[in-house]
């Protein structure tokens, strides 16, 4: 395990890269608890469309956020290759439904480029920067922004 102090400043950070539709995104690996396959979720009443419901994660009730729906790309049709990335943001544990996990990136803070100035809501709300990796563009997702609005956060 790397020394947290030094990694924050200069050196490399690791990201989990994944696909949503045709686009590539990544999140900081430190926020990822585990990656697991898709299991059907129990729908929640009165929930936003991007909340697919809840699943049982070893006894805890885990809400599933459909990232494609959240980003406004469209509803994900879960397949055998669909993946749930379990992330922890503050005290909340949430599963993110994505199409596939592609790889783990090791990159430095310095190589992050600002989000290109486009009109898309997706870019403005959920992306805090982009990486250029071997000709691909990978957007860095801010985890806080994708969370479902809970009564706790609203209070």
């Amino acid at each position, binding site marked *: 395990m790397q020394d947290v102090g030094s990694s924050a400043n200069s050196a490399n950070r690791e990201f989990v890269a994944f696909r949503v539709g045709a686009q590539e995104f990544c999140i900081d690996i430190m926020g990822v608890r585990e990656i697991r396959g898709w299991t059907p979720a*129990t729908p929640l*009443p009165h929930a936003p469309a991007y909340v697919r419901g809840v699943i049982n994660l070893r006894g805890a009730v885990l809400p599933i956020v459909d990232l494609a729906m959240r980003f406004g790309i469209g509803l994900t049709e879960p397949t055998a290759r669909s993946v749930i990335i379990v992330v922890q943001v503050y005290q*909340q544990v949430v599963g993110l439904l994505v199409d596939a996990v592609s790889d783990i990136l090791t990159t430095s803070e310095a190589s992050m480029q600002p989000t290109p100035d486009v009109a898309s809501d997706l870019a403005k709300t959920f992306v805090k920067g982009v990486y250029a990796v071997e000709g691909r563009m990978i957007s860095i997702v801010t985890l806080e922004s994708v969370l479902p609005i809970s009564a706790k956060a609203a209070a």
Partner: protein
Amino acid sequence: MTVDTMAAIRQTFFQECEEQLSEMELGLLAMDEGNADSETVNAVFRAVHSIKGGAGAFKLTALVQFAHTFETALDYVRSGKLHPSADVMKAMLRAADVLADLVAASRDGKEIDESSYAGVAADVKALTTVEGEEEVEEVIEFQPTVIDFGLPDVAPEPAAAPVHEYRVGFTPRPELYLNGNETVLIVRELSRLGNAEVSCDVSAVPDLDTIDPNGAYLSWNIKLSSEAPIEAVREVFEFVDGEAEISVEADGQPEVSDAAIAALLAQALGNAPPAEAEPAATETNSEEHVQPAPAPVEVIASETSAAPQVAEASKAVAVQTQTTIRVEFDRVDRLINLVGELVINQAMLSQRVIEANFAGSSSVIIGLEELEQLTREIQESVMAIRAQPVKPLFQRMSRIVREVADATGKQVRLKTDGEATEVDKTVVERLAEPLTHMIRNAVDHGIESPEERIAAGKSPEGNVRLSAAHRSGRIVIEISDDGAGINRPKVRASAIKKGLISPDAQLSDSDIDNLLFLPGFSTASTISNISGRGVGMDVVKRSILALGGRISISSRPGLGSTFSMSLPLTLAVLDGMAVSVAGQTLVVPLTAIVETLKPKKGEIHAIGADSRVMAIRNTFVPLIDVGTQMGFRDTPADPERSVAILVETGGGARNALLVDSIQDQRQVVIKSLEANYGTVEGIAAATILGDGRVALILDVDALVTGSFEEQLGGDVHYGTGG
């Protein structure tokens, strides 16, 4: 010593204070009932003494002062100088309340104005000067250098009880001093038991140039005449056991009793075999110890003197020392969660085995059944860890009764029953407020004034009875008073005046009684300090319902009222009915369900655009289509191919929930939705089914009212009276 460890010790002190206070209260209440035996009085005295001792270490002067006054009074009772009459006990109980307040204030770092309890302090002080003698002022903070055993003044006069002569030898080892014990305190404590003649043996003190400043050279011989049993004498040395050579011999008792006492001592120190087995064992012991020679008279004497003591002591031991450990609640909760997992996993495994067509293999099936049984037993045992007796809760109520009775000038006695009944810790905690409210009501509204009671031919002292019992997997708590009962005409008139019912409404007696639970109902003709601020029984009912409980009321004019609550034993599991709605499994809490019905043609009527009602025995109840309400489907279900579940909400309103079919009744483990998501309208919590999927538990009240604000939470606020 660092601040942290100091804080930790302080915390431990206050934790222990809580235990001491409850011990004290229990003893005082027993004394109040007339059980002022020496064991009880001693227990109360010890509790107050320990609080005083600990408080002294933390320089909590006010607490020490008051505890000292209180302790002195208790000492008078202990030594027989003061008879624990009703008046004395009244003062004592009030002193106990003040002591509890002082402890709480010290813990929270608050100051309590001395004048607020000066009256009680003076009352208690007055008790010790009843016979005109001067109270012997003790030095509260002991100086280590003082070697003064001249305490004959404190020593009580030998009373009528048989006086034993004890020869006590006490030779401290250096460890005793190293551990901060003080011989003067022990000798002083000993002299409290009776008349002590103390002589110090200095023969072992070496010359000055060879003396080890950390050594222990002194020993004491004490001749004690006391009515206390020998174990009480031994108990004085409990704290220095192993740090000194201690011998206690009772004159006139042959050494056989020593063996019995040694056994007793071992028992008292905690490594005890079952108490019941003890008397028989000691008796055999004493027989074995009797050498062939002694005269038969002596054998009989030893047996008769030892056996009752043993019996008495073992009784006390059985009551007092149940070995316990302190465990953080987090750990228990983690264990409970894990066991919940185990239960789910076991259910999943069973399902998989059936799916895999292993069913033919009987050994697999038998193994599974055994696993299921074991899992259930583990679950029950783990739940039992969280279970706590309602005793502390009930004890707090006796104080409420005292306070309200004083404030209203009534005479009330609280009787409690079934204090050992256990229920989940959370239930106990969340019961405190509603119970307090109901006890206040019982004294304030239920019990009449002494004059009224005499006029009605009753004793001027009213009775409030608080009882708890387990009944068919639930705990039933009843509060009954022998007061005037519910004044039904007045309740009715009040309800009409407040527009809660129409003037020509036909109401049965129980209907009128239940009006008390309506929001904003208050019958007290004068708004008192104690209750009747408009927040009343409706709040109580709400919090009971929020706990998954039910409350009912029964009253007989002139004879009193009874409020009866039935609550689940735990909040971790729930009895529910699993139903299917639009392909989803939902759980309806069993407590809300009145009955289930199959709607027939013509029983469903439409009202307005999209509202429907169902006719049930000539009354129409709103029909709620769970599927559309939850957003699981857009078109309403066909009632004739569905099942209606008649439910009753907190407000007593009846509604019919329309679901596709009923699966079964089962006990489900409650899982929080809030932790990772948030509250969902109409959903109380979630659970995990045997197939590993999540199922939602309906919040019937919220579903029926359909509005978020109405949803019951734990944070229901009460008016605080008094």
